[in-house]
């Protein structure tokens, strides 16, 4: 929903138990500004870190109060969890495949040959942010043919729509950053056709943008609840809400935190790879 220009390092938050208060300098003119900044940052850090701490503590603490990995070990055994995980995984793979095949050639082509259509692309890809998912799924369930409603992959098709804003944004940024015109002209003057230019010249050059778009899509699919629950498919988030275990919510909290931590780790890795690659490119 939000502009996700710089996905990354939530993990650094976890590492940071205490509020990151900047060191106070002795410079007089800045002094006044610094104390309120300290307060704002302490309050912010507390608001964002305490829930993370609480979630992790519940994940590692059994109902008896002892810390152990038992809750996390229970998770795969919990009824329905593996089925939900498998369903989410299949949906995620299908979503990424369809999204890449649909979005990449179109975006590249529009950048290269039809720059006039960029405004139209901008407009269409912002619609999924403006139209609430709840309204979209209500409309889909009202008009979709029965055979389509019978398959969970209807969700994948809709997730492609939900992913459009950040896939397009990511590819757009990646394509603007490279000298698309020169690259494709060089390729053409060496006899490369449109397809081989795309596959062998352009795609390798926008790989970081592609990978981050794919990862964001995966994260979105594994967290999406609105459409999955209303289409009556038990994906991981739907399972977390529906599961009724004896462990006083600990298992659900552990599943939620596991999802978060995995997302953060993957995003952090992607962003740091991206950064080191860019540094190498700069020389």
């Amino acid at each position, binding site marked *: *929903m*939000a502009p*996700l220009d*710089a*996905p*990354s*390092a939530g993990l*650094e*938050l976890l590492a940071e138990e205490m509020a*990151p208060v*900047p060191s106070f300098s002795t410079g007089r003119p800045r002094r006044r*500004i610094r104390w*309120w*900044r300290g307060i704002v940052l302490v309050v*912010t850090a507390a*608001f*964002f870190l305490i*829930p993370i*701490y*609480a*979630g992790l503590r*519940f994940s590692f603490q059994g109902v008896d109060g002892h810390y152990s990995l038992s809750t996390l070990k229970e998770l795969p055994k919990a009824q329905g969890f593996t089925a939900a995980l498998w369903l989410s995984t299949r949906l995620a793979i299908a979503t990424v495949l369809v999204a890449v095949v649909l979005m990449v050639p*179109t975006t590249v*082509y529009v950048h290269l*040959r*039809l720059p*006039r*259509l960029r405004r139209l*692309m901008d407009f*269409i890809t912002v619609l*999924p942010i*403006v139209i609430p998912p*709840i309204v*979209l*799924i*209500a*409309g889909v*369930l*009202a008009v979709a043919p029965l055979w389509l409603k019978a398959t969970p992959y209807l969700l994948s098709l809709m997730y*492609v*729509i939900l992913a459009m804003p950040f896939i397009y944004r990511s590819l757009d940024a990646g394509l603007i950053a490279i000298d698309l015109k020169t690259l494709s002209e060089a390729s*053409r003057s*060496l006899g490369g056709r449109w397809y081989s230019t795309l596959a062998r010249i352009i795609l390798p050059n926008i790989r970081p943008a592609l990978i981050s778009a794919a990862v964001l899509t995966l994260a*979105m699919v594994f*967290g*999406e*609840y*609105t459409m999955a*629950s209303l289409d009556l498919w038990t994906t991981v*988030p739907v399972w*977390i*809400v529906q599961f009724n275990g004896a462990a006083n*919510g600990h298992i*659900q*909290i552990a599943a*939620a935190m596991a*999802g978060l931590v995995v*997302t*953060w780790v993957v995003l952090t890795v992607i*962003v740091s790879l991206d950064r080191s690659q860019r540094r190498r490119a700069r020389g």
Partner: protein
Amino acid sequence: MENHDATAPTPDAPASGVGAVAPGSRRRSWWRRLAPGAAVAPFLLYSALGIGIPTLGVLYYAFRGNHGGWTTGNVSAVVHGIYLIGFENSIKLALLTSIIPGIFGVFVAYAIHTSRSQWLRRMTATASGVLANFGGVNLTFMFVATLGSTGVLTLWLAAVHINLTSLGFHLFTFSGVAVVYMYFQVPLMVLAITPALVGLRPSWREAAENMGASSWRYWRHVGVPVLMPSVLGGMLLLFGSAFAAYATAQSLTTGIIALSPIQIGNFINGNVFSNYQNIGYAIAFGMLVILAAVMTLYNYVQKRASRWLH
């Protein structure tokens, strides 16, 4: 907008480079004429089927009666009783969770923007990017661990004899939903307002100080007027995000709270018996109308804001 390409080089134009233009086979020129359409058509078709048709479906059914035929019954039912309350609650919630995090987010963004710590700035940018996108079920359960009846913060506060429930806070009702929404609204505001803060040039402040302006007068006459459109724009973005949110509110309250998105969900699930089967679509139509108004305002405000952003 330059048309850099070789979609249709004139036949007599000299071929640039070695083998730039393949010998004009008929198949190739036919392909060239169709290629632009062929490349964009799948995307346009997909968007029309995935966004256009469902939206039109919502509009269509909002004005259809139980047994077919056009009616305004659904829409007029929606502006009365429990559905009106749903809209009121949704708007109240969206106002509350756009104004408070909006103001707070500006202070956070400013504190970080003026910080000398490069590390702090980079970490906040990336953390905001992650957290702003992180609503939904996982967030709900993290807050259950924090502010639920046996939550960590609940127990900490109980130890110092603060009872949140007696202060009127319940995680599983309106107040709880509002607090949980702040968790993605504040980062969203930080993301939205940072470009405007970057556009606030130090030379303006220096100019004001050279003319003897106090800090207060600088903010009164320069800083706040320049930032205001961006702040309002950010808040409208937050309003839309809170107004449309379903997953967090639904999983937190198990659907008992009267908010428009949740009422639509209850209709889709068939949990509601009503004289008007299609009321869910009428609520959805109402939400679209409100969001269209919000987006119109947003576009207007963005135009004002972009005057200072280069």
